[in-house]
């Protein structure tokens, strides 16, 4: 059994010491205010006791945390008072990630996370191990995973013992003759374009929180920024027109700030991105301040998705994401294989991985477009009604300008419809959808879990149906299950049946190949 890096003993000891010392500090502070029996000077005796106990706990926890690579499982034993022994079969490992923060990089440390398909959590986190140890673990687990995978029994390279020696903790990162074959590296231009064309909605949270905690300074800034637009001098007692100007300018500046935060976030996160192939795995690394690296066994890949927004489409660029069934710190089993590159290059990558050159997409019937027109018109009408109500009740000026929203409905309906598409290929199903964030999923029939044909009341009236293709990709709320929207019912039914048949075929072919292999080996 091995232990974590000795520095961990120090961080754990200090961490728990401070934590345990602060508990009596706060308890005594609060209780002394409420009860006369409790005196505030107890802090001086209780806090050091808590500090010592915490330090002892941290140290013991360090010594009680052990891990080991056995022949076919990764074993983890941890816990001071309640012990936990965990064995993770290598066959079930989805990905192994290594991340390094700034301080950790200075100290030569890393965090290793091991993911399997089940559970809502990372199955094993080693915080911290030496950098050399982390790389060795990542490589070794990958090798053992491949070895334990029966399907991969034919991959002879995967079976030979790892030529790299386990490094001494001191000599970090010296070994590495199993260099991955280079597949893609994000160059400066691509990184710039990626940062500039990516809108991160989550960045708006950062802006909101900063504004909320900025207090008077933030309020003053917001007010002074709104002045040129006719905003109020003070928050209280302004006219409706001034409030409207304030709201509008705040929204505008908020959007700009969100965009800028997103640009910085993307730049820092994807700086120095590169991905390569090592044995049967894809290995990648990225990050300016915090460095991430991870491995994805190719055998575990569920779907590939080409992702592009209108800006990126306009300049002919696209990104490629890989979905596995794992969970991880970064949106889990959804990893960027190519953050952004020329579309043709992304297509070549897909072609290499799946043999699909380019999609020849069929669109849903035009009735679907009519349906979206109705849907968007209803939304537009609601917006106009809300604006009208605001105009009458609060005297919102120019509320009738919201009637422009009605013009958006047909445009939106057409764009939604025109970006929909599906293509049934030999071994893969291609599903395309979305205008703002167009996703083209490449789903191998072999990865299908369930197939559903869904028809809402409205769809039934128009004779339409949506086909939901479920795979074992990660359960995230943001990224929906690949769905072919609004097919005619008969087409949906026939694709539904087709998918089932092709899953069965793919399975049989695989089983036959496997049998042939095992015969060849015996």
């Amino acid at each position: 059994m091995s232990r974590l890096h000795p520095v961990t003993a120090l961080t754990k000891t200090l961490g728990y010491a401070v934590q345990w010392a602060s508990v009596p500090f706060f308890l005594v502070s609060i209780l002394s205010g409420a009860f006369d029996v409790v005196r505030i000077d107890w802090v001086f005796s209780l806090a050091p006791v808590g500090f010592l106990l915490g330090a002892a706990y941290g140290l013991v926890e360090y010594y009680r945390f052990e891990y080991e690579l056995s022949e076919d499982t990764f074993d983890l034993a941890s816990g001071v008072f309640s012990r936990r022994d965990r064995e993770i079969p290598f066959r079930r490992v989805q990905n192994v990630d290594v991340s390094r923060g700034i301080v950790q990089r200075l100290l030569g440390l890393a965090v290793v996370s091991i993911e399997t398909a089940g559970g809502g959590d990372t199955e094993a986190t080693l915080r911290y191990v030496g950098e050399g140890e982390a790389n060795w673990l990542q490589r070794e687990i990958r090798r053992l995973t491949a070895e334990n995978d029966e399907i991969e029994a034919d991959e002879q390279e995967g079976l030979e013992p790892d030529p790299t020696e386990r490094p001494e903790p001191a000599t970090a990162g010296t070994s590495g003759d199993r260099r991955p074959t280079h597949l893609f590296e994000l160059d400066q231009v691509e990184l710039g374009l990626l940062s500039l064309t990516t809108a991160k909605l989550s960045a708006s949270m950062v802006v909101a929180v900063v504004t909320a905690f900025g207090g008077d300074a933030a309020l003053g800034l917001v007010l002074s920024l709104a002045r040129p637009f006719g905003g109020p001098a003070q928050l209280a007692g302004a006219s409706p027109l001034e409030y409207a100007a304030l709201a509008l300018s705040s929204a505008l500046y908020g959007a700009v700030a969100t965009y800028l935060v997103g640009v910085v976030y993307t730049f820092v996160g994807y700086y120095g991105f590169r991905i390569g192939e090592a044995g049967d795995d894809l290995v990648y690394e990225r990050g300016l301040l915090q460095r991430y690296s991870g491995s994805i066994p190719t055998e575990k890949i569920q779907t590939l998705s080409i992702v592009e927004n209108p800006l990126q489409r306009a300049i002919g660029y696209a990104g490629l994401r890989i979905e596995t069934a794992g969970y991880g710190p970064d949106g889990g089993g959804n990893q960027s294989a190519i953050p952004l590159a020329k579309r043709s290059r992304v297509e070549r990558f897909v072609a290499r991985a799946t043999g699909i050159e380019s999609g020849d997409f069929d669109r849903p019937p035009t009735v679907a477009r009519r349906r979206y027109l109705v849907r968007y018109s209803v939304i537009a009408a609601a917006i106009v009604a809300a604006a009208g109500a605001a105009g009458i009740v609060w005297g919102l000026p120019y509320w009738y300008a919201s009637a422009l929203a009605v013009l958006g409905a047909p445009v939106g309906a057409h764009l939604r419809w025109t970006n929909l598409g599906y293509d049934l290929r030999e071994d893969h199903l291609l599903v395309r959808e979305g205008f703002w964030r167009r996703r083209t999923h490449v789903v191998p029939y072999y990865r299908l879990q369930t197939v559903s044909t869904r028809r809402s009341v409205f769809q039934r009236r128009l004779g339409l149906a949506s086909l939901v293709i479920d795979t074992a990709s990660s359960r995230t709320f943001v990224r929906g299950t690949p769905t072919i929207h609004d097919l005619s019912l008969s087409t949906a039914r026939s694709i539904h049946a087709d998918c089932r048949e092709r899953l069965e075929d793919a399975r049989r072919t695989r089983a036959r190949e496997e049998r042939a292999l095992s015969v060849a080996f015996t």
Partner: protein
Amino acid sequence: MESLHSRVRAVWIVRAVVVACVLAVAVAAAERWLVDTLPAAALVAVGLVAAGVGIGHALVLYSRWGFELQDDALYLERGVVTFVETSVPFVRVQHVDTEFGPVERALGLSSVVVYTAGSRNADVTIPGLRPERARRLQDTLRDLAVESEGEDAV
């Protein structure tokens, strides 16, 4: 196509009535807090309408529910507002549970839950089966899943 046991309607109706009662009480509480002018009859009406919708939903749902063991997959169809037809290939069945809640138990019914590794329809429930039918279905599904086992895709 096999339909559910007719007593499942009672389970759903009981559920709908409970929900309607909770809704009526919630509306009554909100009304007390905010306006406090509506007559009690209006609140009873809210409860009755909710119960009526729920009961109607239960009856239609029963008439639409069906499942079938086909040669490669478990096939189900159900739904009132959105009608859904789902195929769960036997190879994809991870495990199968039988379970029953208090109302189901009182009415002598049981449910079968089929789990897959998928993300959206990861668990498929067939409610309203006699316990022996549920047990038999569970066994059949397990056998079919084992029989058709290839290399699992996760």
